[in-house]
């Protein structure tokens, strides 16, 4: 990682948390299996446990190969494996970018500009994200930290304004249909935590105690998800199950005294967070492409990645991501586990075996 700029681990933590919280904002019970409202609360705890389990390769990477990202770890086995890993991660990040852009387009097209074409917005958003990605990780980290503060502030307002509309009688009994629905919801939430793949690339770029930051990040995510789900289901009741974006519906309801239209505040925060996530993903693709090809054309890689996303989103009307959203949980979980858990696990295992053999060889000589 020589020559790469570094950021504080807490800054990285803020950017990754913001990216994950954006996925929580797009939480939609529509189309998913109908799960009783209170079953979502234990599901967040289960999801945190699953995330911890899926983080094992990341923990091993940090422990055995400090200062190396996943492509560098693969390089210790063979340069070819490093390139293959790099390409696998580029594909992975491209897909996550497509998912993020498609979700943003869906939100903007449904809520902000229901009467007009959102293509122009998407073009501008990707153009701005490409520019932000070329500015580097430090810039994204700084904006991400400020955005997280804004995000937290906006939600503090919304929750405060919603307090008088919360009715616990709206909530269902916990585990009414057994533990299975909660586990299903947990798996769904855990497999949306693609930030573990981001961390596999970015962790060596962070200064500070990564373990503590990771724990705080996970705890913050758990608390936020619990809080937002509580306000969604205790505030909206079964109405939440009819909404494409129930978190936005909560923001629409939250008003007190002369303070109204908090949904506009949420919309702003939502778009800002999506912009940062897309910028980060484009930056990550550029980083991985630099490892696979030449390091010279980093800005060109960002531009190409952005262009690819734009073409697929605008001209293919989100066909790829439509397929992903309509795919069952098993298919989505399979994809996630294969790319985010198994690929790094195998790379780390191979690197450890090679290192052990190297040690044994050295001792025998």
């Amino acid at each position, binding site marked *: 990682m020589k020559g790469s700029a570094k950021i504080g681990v807490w800054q990285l933590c803020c950017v990754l948390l913001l990216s994950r919280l954006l996925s929580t904002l797009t939480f939609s019970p529509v189309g998913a299996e109908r799960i009783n409202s209170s079953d979502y609360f234990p599901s967040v705890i289960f999801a945190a446990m699953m995330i911890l389990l899926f983080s094992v390769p990341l923990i091993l990477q940090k422990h055995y190969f400090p200062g190396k990202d996943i492509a560098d770890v693969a390089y210790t086995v063979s340069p070819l494996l490093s390139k293959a890993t790099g390409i696998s991660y580029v594909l992975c990040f491209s897909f996550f970018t497509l998912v993020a852009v498609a979700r943003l387009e869906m939100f903007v097209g*449904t*809520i902000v*500009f*229901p*009467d*007009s074409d959102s293509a*122009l*917005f998407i073009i*501008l958003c990707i153009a*701005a994200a490409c*520019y932000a990605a070329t500015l580097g990780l430090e810039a994204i980290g700084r904006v991400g930290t400020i955005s997280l503060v804004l995000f937290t502030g906006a939600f503090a307002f919304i929750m405060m304004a919603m307090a008088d509309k919360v009715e616990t*009688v*709206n*909530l*269902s*009994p916990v585990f*009414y249909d057994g533990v299975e629905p909660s586990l299903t919801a947990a798996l769904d939430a855990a497999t949306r935590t693609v930030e573990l793949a981001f961390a596999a690339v970015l962790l060596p770029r962070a200064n500070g105690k990564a373990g503590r930051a990771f724990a705080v990040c996970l705890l913050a995510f758990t608390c936020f998800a619990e809080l937002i789900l509580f306000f969604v289901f205790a505030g*909206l*009741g*079964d*109405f939440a*199950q*009819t*909404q494409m974006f129930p978190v936005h*519906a909560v923001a*629409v*309801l939250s*008003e007190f005294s002369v303070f109204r239209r908090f949904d506009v505040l949420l919309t702003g925060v939502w778009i800002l967070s999506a912009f940062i996530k897309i910028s980060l993903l484009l930056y990550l693709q550029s980083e991985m492409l630099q490892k696979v090809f030449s390091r010279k054309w980093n800005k060109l890689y960002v531009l190409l990645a952005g262009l690819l996303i734009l073409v697929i989103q605008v001209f293919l009307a989100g066909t790829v991501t439509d397929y992903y959203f309509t795919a069952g949980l098993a298919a989505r979980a399979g994809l996630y586990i294969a790319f985010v858990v198994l690929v790094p696990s195998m790379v780390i295992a191979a690197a450890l075996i090679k290192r052990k053999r190297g040690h044994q060889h050295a001792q025998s000589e």
Partner: protein
Amino acid sequence: MRKVSKMLFLVLLIVLLLSGCSTPGLELKNRLIVQAIGIDETQDGVRVTLQTLNTEMAGNPNSGADLGEVTRCLTVEGATVSEAISNAAKSEGKQPLISQNRLIVFGRETAKSGLYTHLDYFVRNASTRLTVPVAVSDTTAEELVSASLGENVLTADSITDILDGARYNTNIVSQALYEFVNQLSSELTDAFIPVLRMEEAGEENKISMYSVGVFQDDRMTYELSADDVTALMLLTDKAQSGYFSVDNEAYSAQTVLRIKKTGTKIQSKVQNGKILFNVQVKMTVDILETRSDTPFSLDKAYLLQTEALAQQRISEMIEAAVRRCFLEQNSDPFGFGQRFWKKYPAQFKSDVVHWRNALPTVEVKTQADVSVERVGNGVENL
């Protein structure tokens, strides 16, 4: 050069993003600003009555020119609500703007034949405010929405003002769209919304709260009387303030009490295999008026008696309303079933299953705790 290109990029963003209202057809003068929507079912579909703002009049109220009333009513028909609303553009040449809508009204017959099919448009349309009140017209929605309440009086405004009265009067109910849909989706709690009546008063009309309609599934099946509405408000813990009176025979007096603060706690339990709900109402009241033929002083004995009578009145009112709904209508608009399901899920699953079937055997006991805080400025009645 770098700085200039950044500036140009920013200018481009501003030009492209901050031009939303200049899109042809989206300017305010080209929109029908909808204030209230009335829906009546017809044989071929639905008749939608839109109360819209007369933008020319609203923009120039003092111009002196005859620009007509501040609102206009427009009736359109279509196979569905969305089709009918979009048909408005055909006759007016303007696109309806639903985000400013302040009221949704259904005709009585429409409410009786089921509302699910008509509500989907409002739930799906992101422009609809979820807090918009929903009501039923005693006759047709068209009649209520197009009622003329006087020169430059916004009917939608007047109706929402009436419904806002729920904060001061326990006989008034106001239900927001999301609350109504939430109740309609519930298998345990029956939904309810206010029924409004329009009466002719000379050249102008008058709108008032008539009753509260209760829905089973999505059909309005019966209505609640004024006392039952008070009980409903108390049991759903939505009562904030209001008035009720008690008759004191010992003093030959009628005392009017104003509710200052009230809270209700409902506990469910199973006793000898029977489902029992204990309702506890804690209320603070002020004496607003005493009416008697002979003067008497408001002494401690009178106050204690008033408190006891108020407690009795509240208990009787709640138990009578519950009896009527449970036994006569086989309906639970109070949310008892939801509470029982939440507290005893296993028992509910094994013994109850269909809450409606269990209603005749459910017992509700009420305990009211009413305390008089102030008696007003007079020490004795006149």
